[in-house]
């Protein structure tokens, strides 16, 4: 199952306005791995993700999806295998109804209509929003929009799921539900996030980006304990690993 592999070799990218983006990023993510890409605002996490499905092309370096390097010729196949969930669901859900939106990908893949209906229903059931099928996306809550966004990608049966800040602007319960849902997926997962607690829950491996470079790549548990590394990358220990100020106060009182 080598097509689930994502490999970046010395990726370099400069924005059109001349600002340096990626400054030589390399990693290899293998089949079934769940990897968090963390970093401060402007650490070019989203830019890196956009390279993984060929939306941006690196000035230097290569991206390999499976056994082949990403080129214009195999872009279609790569985009089918790398499913991308955007940070803002309003960008992702552009069709008039939830059904149309989830059906957009499968119809473009040339599936028969009956097959498309089955696929859409299956994808919506997987994320638990089958009842929203006929609703227009602008009427959904943030949590529902996020779930539908994931369904739109699942309907294309991708091998690799790439998600940009999936838990942003979700309330705690919707966030928890999403994390539990993502845990059930067997895909290779790449998640760019600020939510380090989610990274702890979901990803066994973490890549830390700082100013366009990788400053650490290793087991999430180990990275999240390294306060010095986190501080130098403008991050903080996940909340659950920080000592509780209330309990600490109580201990002092006793």
């Amino acid at each position, binding site marked *: 199952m080598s097509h689930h592999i994502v490999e970046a070799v010395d990726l370099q990218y400069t924005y059109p306005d001349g600002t340096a983006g990626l400054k030589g990023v390399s990693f290899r993510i293998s089949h079934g791995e769940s990897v968090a890409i963390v970093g401060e605002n402007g650490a070019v996490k989203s830019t890196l993700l956009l390279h993984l499905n060929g*939306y941006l092309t690196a000035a230097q370096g290569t991206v390999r999806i499976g056994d082949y390097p990403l080129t214009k010729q195999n872009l279609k196949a790569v*985009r089918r295998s790398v499913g991308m969930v*955007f940070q803002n669901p309003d960008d*992702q859900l552009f*069709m008039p*109804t939830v059904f149309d939106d989830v059906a957009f990908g499968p119809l*473009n893949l040339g599936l028969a209509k009956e097959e498309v209906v089955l696929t859409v229903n299956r994808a919506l059931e997987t994320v638990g929003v089958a009842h929203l099928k006929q609703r227009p996306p*602008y*009427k959904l809550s943030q949590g529902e929009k996020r779930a539908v966004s994931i369904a739109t990608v699942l309907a294309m049966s991708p091998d690799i799921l790439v998600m940009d800040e999936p838990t942003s602007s979700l309330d705690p319960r919707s966030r928890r539900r999403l994390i539990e849902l993502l845990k059930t997926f067997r895909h290779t997962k790449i998640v760019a996030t600020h939510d380090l607690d989610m990274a702890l829950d979901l990803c066994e491996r973490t890549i830390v980006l700082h100013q366009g470079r990788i400053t650490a790549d290793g087991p999430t548990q180990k990275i999240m304990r390294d306060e010095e590394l986190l501080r130098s990358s403008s991050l903080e220990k996940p909340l659950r690993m920080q000592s509780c100020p209330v309990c600490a106060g109580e201990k002092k009182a006793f």
Partner: protein
Amino acid sequence: MNNIGANSFNIGYLDTLACGDSVLHRLDPRAKLIATLMFIVAVVSFDKYALSQLTPFFIYPIVLISLGGLPAGYLLKKVLLVSPFAILVGIFNPLLDKEILIQFGSIGIAGGWISFMSILLRFVLTVTAALILVSLTGFNAVCGALLKFGMPRPFVMQLLFFYRYIFVLTDEAERMVRAGSFRSFNSRAVGFKTFIPLTGTLLLRTLERAERIYHAMCCRGFDGHIRIIRAMKIRHQEIIFTLGWTFLFIWLRCYNIPLTLGALITGVLK
């Protein structure tokens, strides 16, 4: 105070109405679209001084509103909201056309006033019919019907995208206006000076969003064609609905019913 948000919410209410379940809601969108188009063509085709001939056409909105269980007050408010356009179109008629056409005792009514009233009447009839169509069918289904009738695909897609993002855009505009009004300490929320950069920013944001949406579409295999599955079926009721209304409109167009009725009543009284 600004009320952009309130207005956009109200437009969304049309979709809520379209989710209703009545005989009319269940009809194929194409039948309702044809009936509405026939209605509009019939209403618009009268000559410019037509007034009495137009009144029987109110039967169409009245029947549809009552059978479809639509809120008449809400639809009327929406019609009033856009009425300034119609008023602007006809407001100069009384000034330009001063020839007396009707004489009520000593009061003469100029042709300009009659054509102005006729414009207003046509406006109310056609806009109400269009609103009823959307509230009984839903904007997306109307677009689906247009597509089935051979309307060019890019045009329908533009309409669908417009409708999908009008809410996002009004929300964005509302947030910007609110932010502006919180920091402008006079009564006017958005002055002319702030209006220009605000519109510019909105345009830039829209362009950025358009790019992100295009990207999202590419990610899911967009190749220049948007494919939509729509199951539509013409049954007996659709044929009866469309033909029934079409014949009625033709009849109302060809015979001046109020005039005939008036002549009949005055004849009986004599």
